[in-house]
């Protein structure tokens, strides 16, 4: 583990107790309005969303301008902000409509855009000057002098390359006064972002305009060309050549990132479910808050780590944060495993007197199942499901209709939008 160096600029002593005064932003992905609301409700300070143009996830449920407006209004009630990704590298044909689009984004109250192409940077500055400009990781920003360049260009924030380590971040913060955003959790590119066109070659889909088909997750066979002869560099039974990286998980490095003075901690995954967002954001929220409230006595709780693993479908690693990742940070020879826990229901209401929860079913569950409730207002707890009733008051054995409304008894308090998950067996 890296040594944690205390940063005096971000702490203060109040009544003999040290607290962190510069709390980093927790930035969540939101592929839809529902996900945005969940992210904010579960503790995100900011969310990033994609619009219907100029963004990099053609498959994510992207926002219309009206949905952006609703998202911004919802976020504002919680004191949270919204950023929009406009991080394609445009071709000539993508240049039209940009001005109107940026003005519309500014108009609905979005705080900033995440952008890679100088075309969009300069256009934004000209037509939508109230928007903050954040440099996307697609620019693979990996040294402090390049950070200085973007500072000189007037950018508010830079998102670092995924290849930047803790000591490199420290130097960047020392050399340049600009907000720095770094990834803390989620799926990773194995290539320098923006410098991979595997999809273009293999499937005629442009990765730098949102068409990435994740060819880096496929298996290949490695050969050597010896004087025109093709010699296999593997034997029967050897794992094929693979590049697939484990997912990033820096939950245990959060104190370190806070001490480095990183301004925004970013969770990746606009395609992920509301269960994933709720779980990941709530755990990171707890860690950030706990460390900032009392850095001297902070320890990471085992239950936080366990909770985070409940929505993981790939093994996780620290990537470049603590140094060059070894082969142990790649996935060889095995497919993503199923998640250990499934999202099973969303709390619509809880009656304190009768101790009955009203729940919207999101996955099959039945009487006798072990389930777990979690949410920002409660400590997670497990229980066994007793009798279940449907919305007509009839007792049912199983809740097997998607989105059906059911009630059952829970003897601890729940709140609207708490979630229920069920162990996968």
């Amino acid at each position, binding site marked *: 583990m890296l040594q944690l160096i205390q940063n005096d600029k971000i702490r203060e002593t109040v009544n003999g107790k040290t607290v962190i005064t510069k709390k980093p932003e927790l930035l969540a992905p939101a592929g839809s309005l529902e996900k945005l609301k969940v992210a904010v409700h579960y503790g995100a300070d900011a969310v990033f969303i994609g619009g219907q143009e100029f963004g990099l996830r053609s498959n994510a449920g992207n926002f219309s301008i009206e949905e952006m407006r609703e998202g911004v209004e919802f976020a504002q009630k919680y004191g949270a902000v919204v950023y929009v990704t406009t991080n394609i590298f445009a071709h*000539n044909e993508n240049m039209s409509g940009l001005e109107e689009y940026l003005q519309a984004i500014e108009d609905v109250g979005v705080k900033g855009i995440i952008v890679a192409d100088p075309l969009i940077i300069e256009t934004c500055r000209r037509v939508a000057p109230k928007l903050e400009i954040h440099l996307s990781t697609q620019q693979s920003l990996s*040294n402090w002098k*390049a950070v200085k*360049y973007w500072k000189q260009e007037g950018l508010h924030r830079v998102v670092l390359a995924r290849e930047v380590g803790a000591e490199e971040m420290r130097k960047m913060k020392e050399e340049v006064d600009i907000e720095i955003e770094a990834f803390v959790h989620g799926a990773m590119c194995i*290539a320098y972002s923006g*410098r991979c066109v595997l999809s273009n070659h293999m499937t005629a889909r442009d990765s*730098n305009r949102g068409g990435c088909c994740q060819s880096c997750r496929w298996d290949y066979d490695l050969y050597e060309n010896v004087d025109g002869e093709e010699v296999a560099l593997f034997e029967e039974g050897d794992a094929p050549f693979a590049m697939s990286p484990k997912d990033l998980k820096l939950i245990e490095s959060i104190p370190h990132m806070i001490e480095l003075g990183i301004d925004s901690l970013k969770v990746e995954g606009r395609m992920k479910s509301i269960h994933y967002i709720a779980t990941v954001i709530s755990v990171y929220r707890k860690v950030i808050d706990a460390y900032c409230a009392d850095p001297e006595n902070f320890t990471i709780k085992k239950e936080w780590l366990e909770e985070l693993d409940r929505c993981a479908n790939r093994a996780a690693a620290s990537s470049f944060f603590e140094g060059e990742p070894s082969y142990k940070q790649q996935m060889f020879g095995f497919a993503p495993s199923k998640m250990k826990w499934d999202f099973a229901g969303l709390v619509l209401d809880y009656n304190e007197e009768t101790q009955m929860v009203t729940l919207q079913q999101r996955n099959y569950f039945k009487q006798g199942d072990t389930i777990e409730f979690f949410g920002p207002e409660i400590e997670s707890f497990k229980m066994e499901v007793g009798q279940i009733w449907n919305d007509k008051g009839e007792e049912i054995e199983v809740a097997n209709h998607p989105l059906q409304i059911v009630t059952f008894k829970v003897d601890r308090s729940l709140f609207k939008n708490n979630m229920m998950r069920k162990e996968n067996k």
Partner: protein
Amino acid sequence: MSKPELLVTPKSVDHIKALLSAGADAFVIGEQQFGLRLAGEFTVQQVKEATELVHASNKKVYVAVNALFHNDRLDALDVYLKEMQKIGVDAIIFGDPAVLVAVRELGITIPLHWNPETTATNWFQANYWAERGAKRAVLARELSLDEIVEIKENSKSEIEVQVHGMTCMFQSKRKLLGNYFLYRGEAMEIENRKENKNMFLHDKERKNKYPIYEDLNGTHIFSPNDMCLIDELTELFEAGIDTLKFDGVLQTEEYITTVTNIYRQAIDAYFDQGEDAYEDLKDDLLEKIEGIQPPLRPLDTGFVFKETVY
């Protein structure tokens, strides 16, 4: 209309002599600590020798400083840029804005060529970097002919386009080959493979072979085909593209020299004798290239006539 520059990638100082005779106008050289995916490694001393040699023939030397830099190479970058200034090379090729900042701070007066490879996709960007000091933009290889022509029409800087050779389609900072051998428990084996540039990945589904190697900058994976526009140059000539580049990475000296001469013939035919002369000659030129093409490297036309979706 003036002749476009024919830009090639020598493997050594001696190779430059052969390439000068074959008709090259300009050369990309450098070393992997600063430049990406070079055909040959040139120390500072060799850059000096190469520059003297090339300048004696009134031709140009461009030095590749287009790596993605991390903090630990910035001091060396400053030293290197000062050396290049002393030698008097004709251009610095850069992708990382750190080079621009260093050039400004050090008062370097060598012209700059902007080349971030995959991300140079529109004319606005070409002009953006031109306003910040780039004399030339090197376009992404993933563009169509129409896009290339439109960029040239709207750009304030010189435009360089690759017309022949393989193209990089992936760069990771990770040591992906080393990691694979380590995973299989053959850690020692990779030590002997550091300089091995003969490996390729086989994609069984697409029946493609992708060259792959590791160096200081990480792992590089290349296109399954060599692009070859020898018989498709008319529109690039008409558009006034300033430089036609043949990237000879992972090719032999003999191949690079022969192909350079074939492109020389095409350019001279068109500009000295007219379009008809080129039209008459181009099929023969293509046949000559096909005749020396390595068996594992099929030819295609890259993305010039291929649409991508997203």
